[in-house]
């Protein structure tokens, strides 16, 4: 894979010509990759195909759930349960260890939520996700009820006990990718609408966040845009963006780009050493290797 070296320090993070292996293809909208440390396999979704796939290196892939209500972002909670941003299902749900599906959230203040996009779990067990109404609109992934009821686009937090649901951010539109810094003191959230920017928020002890600060805004000279984001153990932020994956240091400085030849939607760290980077694109999932491990998923 080609790379763009913007800052010389980028070579400390990636090889001059890192591999790019296609591990899955023939999907109609890849998203939601997350590595399962217990089974050493990758889960990802095909949003339009309404499937959750499991890929095990050296073995292959299989469907683990269908239909999914056009599920989108996924992560694991501290108990190792696959936790899902339901997108067209207009819900947050998880798969229990026995395989049963439990719905966690469908409404906020009595109104049906919009379409949850991406999701992370804090060490406290609280679930954070982005929610915008865009899933009500995109062909092939529209919910049964396509009416928007909540005016605000938002980032929501559900406490570990499931009793406290709060909207922690609602001052922007089309919240999409979401990621914590390694120490969880910062929360990165992006806007995938025309503005296309990433902001960073201080995370308070009670789980709320402070005002957002501009962090990064990509130049839009090539296809692609900000969507999924992940952070490595040194706090470098990896985000999808024009031309591939943009790697940004904790100060918001672009270090370089991984030039993935497809429209990237999201990514996940994986492998035993968390140095594999699985990259979901519209029609395929790729894997590359980096030098600095990513933040492990529960």
């Amino acid at each position, binding site marked *: 894979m080609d790379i763009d070296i913007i800052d010389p320090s980028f070579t400390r993070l990636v090889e001059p010509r890192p591999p790019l292996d296609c591990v899955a293809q023939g999907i*109609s*909208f890849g998203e939601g990759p997350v590595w399962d440390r217990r089974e050493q396999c990758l889960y990802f979704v095909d949003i*339009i195909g309404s499937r959750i796939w499991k890929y095990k290196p050296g073995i292959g892939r299989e469907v683990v759930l269908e239909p999914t209500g056009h599920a989108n972002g996924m992560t694991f909670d501290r108990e190792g349960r696959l936790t899902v941003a339901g997108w067209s299902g207009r819900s947050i749900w998880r798969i229990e260890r026995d395989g049963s599906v439990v719905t966690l959230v469908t409404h906020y203040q009595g109104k049906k939520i919009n379409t949850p996009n991406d999701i992370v779990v804090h060490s406290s067990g609280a679930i954070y996700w982005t929610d915008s*109404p*865009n899933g*009500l*609109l*995109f*062909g*092939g992934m*529209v919910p*049964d*009820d*396509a*009416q*928007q*009821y909540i005016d605000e686009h938002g980032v929501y937090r559900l406490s570990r006990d499931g009793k406290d649901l709060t909207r922690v951010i609602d001052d922007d539109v089309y919240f999409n990718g979401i990621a914590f810094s390694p120490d969880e003191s910062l929360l990165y959230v992006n806007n995938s609408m025309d503005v296309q920017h990433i902001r960073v928020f201080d995370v308070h002890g009670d789980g709320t966040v402070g005002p957002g600060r501009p962090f990064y805004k990509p130049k839009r000279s090539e296809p692609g845009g900000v969507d999924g984001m992940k952070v490595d153990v040194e706090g470098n932020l990896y985000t999808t963006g024009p031309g591939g994956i943009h790697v940004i240091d904790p100060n918001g400085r672009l270090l370089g780009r991984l030039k993935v030849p497809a*429209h990237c*939607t999201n990514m996940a760290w994986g492998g035993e050493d968390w140095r594999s980077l699985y990259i979901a694109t*519209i029609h395929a999932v790729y894997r590359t290797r980096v030098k600095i491990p990513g933040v492990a998923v529960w």
Partner: protein
Amino acid sequence: MPWHFERVAGPFRGATMGLAWDGSGMLFCAVDEERILRFDPETGTIEEFRKYTQRTSGIAWGPDNILFGSQEAGRRIIAFMPDGSARQTAYKLNGCFHNQPVDLIVDRSCRIWFCDPHSARRPPGVFVFPPLPHASVLRLERASHRQWNLQQGTYDTVAPRALLLSADETVLYVADGEVGQSVSRELRAYPIASDGSMGCFSVLHSFGTDYRGEHRGIEGMCLDSGGNIVACAGWQKSGPGPLIYVFAQSGAVLETHALPIDLPNRCAFGDANLTSLYVTSMDGCLYRTTHIRRRGHAANFVSVLPRAI
């Protein structure tokens, strides 16, 4: 006698488009605001009927108080349900996504006919599904309570803009052609067979071109009680200017009435006994003319719950 138009609502952001009389008020689409609004002629007030309409530009009542809308941004015909929800209908023609619908009409068999032109405004989101290689009139038919089938109606249109059914529903009038998109802009009449298939069309009217440019064709139509076609068309840039035309079923021009506004979009009869004509336009307003000595043809369906939902 000249028709006098008064502005009764607006301006709103962007164009106003689709119209639907609900029995006591006129619904109209404020497309850029992504809202359907309701004008109450008794009080002169405007209320919001539905928001987040995803650039719905055409509306028509169906049975059971369902308002159907053509969503340009969503690339679908949506059913605005009385309980406030919105259900999509079939959006694939032979496995491919259709284009960006702009106008629709519901016949008494509850089939939905809609114009499906290409649009210069790309739908939002990642561009996964290309447009159809044609721009046709399509027809939705209910397959079951929640399922719809989508059929192709026309095979010879290039930019269908507006639709109208004759009173006996044996003829579909289609305004085909758009400035910059087609060689001609025509009002066509297609015979409809009982199975919904369409025969060869007759051209009832054709819009021309002069040194100032192409004449803007029909953007909206409604039917009067005599079965005549009332249409809004034209612009100030070229041709005879913005007009309301009244065509006989043969295509003979019975009347024209100058509009005081440029770029009219849709027209529909409303008010008591359907004796007023409402017009929307690119200036974002709703206009009305009364005492015009013409009445509208009663629609197949109107709401009996004409309140915001």
